[in-house]
């Protein structure tokens, strides 16, 4: 249960963080952009698409972005970067986690503010500080080289060093002009939903609603590395959980079996005075039932306190893995281990344990019903 709770919480956090670093839980983009990402594969009316997407009951936020590659240059150096052009009026930390790591400076005042926010690694490479001039160069919609001048308005530190070495934020309207886009044109609309587990169904639903000109992709499709990592971890966890379930079932079986074997004489007496084998079988199954039920209730009562502590506070392992946490599939994972189990997972585990208890009782119950009184009722 604890392992599942840790896994549920951590994977949910990773997925949410990845969504806020990238294209949301569901991304609307040109159908060919995923395979061949160029500035010419755009969505022309992102405002309309956002409005349509927000009609879906699961979609809570929709933000328009332009993403792509650029070359950044300062007086000191030049290097390649991945940029995300955003509208500061649409974004906050619930859609753009980079803002949480804004170490120095501020977000753009408007979508026409000629600022740039870059990762700490990038700032170091470019030897740039707040207020410094940075030139960005990219190919526009038609394949022509375009450049623009901006001033460094902020530096972000996400904890993922590789990410901090390539990321930069730019104001969307200025980039639209640079790339030759129309007013509502952009590369993607990032959609955010309450429960990331519904990403696939939302993507499927929007895919059919929005028509062939727009692709709706869940985070699994836009971030296959993360999806693969989680799938692998979940697969391993299921294997471990099955092993644990077998051990638990063996423990319960042992308890019930020993309990029956210690009471063979009692069962012999019961058969002698008129209990039928079926009734004895039922009696032990009823014991299994109560063992399962009381065990679950006791387990819930005993673990409730520690569980809520882990939900609210968690365990800080930064001394072991560093203050910035670990980086998994490009995502910085918090150094505080927290838990948060999904209700259906908790129910599944509870039901599985209960069923394991009942199954473990089958053989002892059968054995109790097969007791031969003349062999077990001995003179004491």
């Amino acid at each position, binding site marked *: 249960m604890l392992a599942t709770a840790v896994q549920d919480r951590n994977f949910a956090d990773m997925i949410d963080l990845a969504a806020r670093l990238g294209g949301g839980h569901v991304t609307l983009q040109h159908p060919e952009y995923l395979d061949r990402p160029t500035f010419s594969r755009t969505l022309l009316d992102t405002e309309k698409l956002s409005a349509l997407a927000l009609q879906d009951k699961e979609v809570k936020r929709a933000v328009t972005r332009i993403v792509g590659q650029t070359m950044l240059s300062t007086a000191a150096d030049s290097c390649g970067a991945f940029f995300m052009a955003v509208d500061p009026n649409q974004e906050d930390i619930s859609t753009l986690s980079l803002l949480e790591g804004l170490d120095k400076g501020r977000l753009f005042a408007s979508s026409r503010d000629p600022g740039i926010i870059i990762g700490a690694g990038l700032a170091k490479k470019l030897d740039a500080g707040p207020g410094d001039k940075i030139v960005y160069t990219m190919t526009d919609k038609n394949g022509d080289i375009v450049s623009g001048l901006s001033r460094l308005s902020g530096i972000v530190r996400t904890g993922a060093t590789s990410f901090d070495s390539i990321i930069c934020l730019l104001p969307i309207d200025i980039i639209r002009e640079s790339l030759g886009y129309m007013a509502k044109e952009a590369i993607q609309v990032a959609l955010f939903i309450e429960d990331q587990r519904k990403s696939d169904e939302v993507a499927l639903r929007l895919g059919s609603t929005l028509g062939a000109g727009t692709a709706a992709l869940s985070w699994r499709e836009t971030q296959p590395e993360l999806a693969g990592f989680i799938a692998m971890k979940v697969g391993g966890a299921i294997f471990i959980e099955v092993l644990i379930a077998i051990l638990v079932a063996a423990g319960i079986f042992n308890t019930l079996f020993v309990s029956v074997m210690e009471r063979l004489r009692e069962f012999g007496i019961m058969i002698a005075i*008129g209990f039928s084998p079926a009734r004895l079988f039922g009696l032990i199954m009823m014991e299994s039932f109560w063992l399962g039920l009381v065990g679950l209730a006791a387990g819930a009562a005993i673990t409730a306190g520690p569980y809520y502590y882990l939900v609210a506070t968690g365990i800080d392992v930064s001394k072991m893995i560093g203050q910035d946490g670990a980086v998994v599939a490009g995502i910085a994972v918090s150094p505080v281990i927290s838990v948060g189990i999904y209700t259906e997972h908790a129910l599944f585990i509870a039901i599985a344990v209960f069923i394991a208890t009942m199954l473990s009782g089958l053989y002892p119950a059968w054995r109790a019903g097969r007791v031969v*009184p003349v062999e077990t*009722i001995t*003179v004491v």
Partner: protein
Amino acid sequence: MNPDESKALVELKDVVKIYQQGNVEVHALRGLTFKVLTGEFSAICGPSGSGKTTALNMIGALDSPTSGSVVVEGRNLASLSRKTLSRIRRDRIGFVFQAYNLIPVLTAYENAEIVMSLQGKSQEERHARVMGLLDEVGLKEMAHRRPYELSGGQQQRVAIARAIASGPAVVLADEPTANVDSDTADKLLALMEKLNQDRGVTFIFSTHDPKVMARAKRIIRLVDGRIVDDKSWEAV
């Protein structure tokens, strides 16, 4: 109570029981044949290993013969299903064991009541009958004590109350006085005698206690699994 000769409650015909102990065959019963009539107060006696307990186990449907037949109330036990045998043990046979064999987690009242619960009797009926029986065996005040809180004689009285609570046709008592002192044994025998006379319950004992034999109306003597003497109640 005088037995009714027209009703053979229990009938054993050529009953042979052979136990296999490793490679050795142990002949516990060697062609046992006798009848017990309704209302009898009989004792099966003999030295240890003579087959007394095995004979009672056969009559009580706790064990089955290697050959021969055991007929209780006209039904050959060998032809009955496990379920029917359970029902016969529940409704028609009461057991009193040498080691009392009460269920340790239940009180005296619950031990006496349990068979009636299996019979599906109502709470009121069970309560009235069990309290009446505990009163009869002198344990009404100890109804809520558990077996470990009772003396051996008291436990055996609870066992007798349990045996007759279901209204059985026959009570099989395996060495019922073996684990109690002489005075208690007398009291137990008097109690069983009274139940036989007042309620018409048939009793079959296994014993090698001369006191029990002295009070029995019929004595079937076994040696090495054979009847060597059977003094019927008329002869006594």
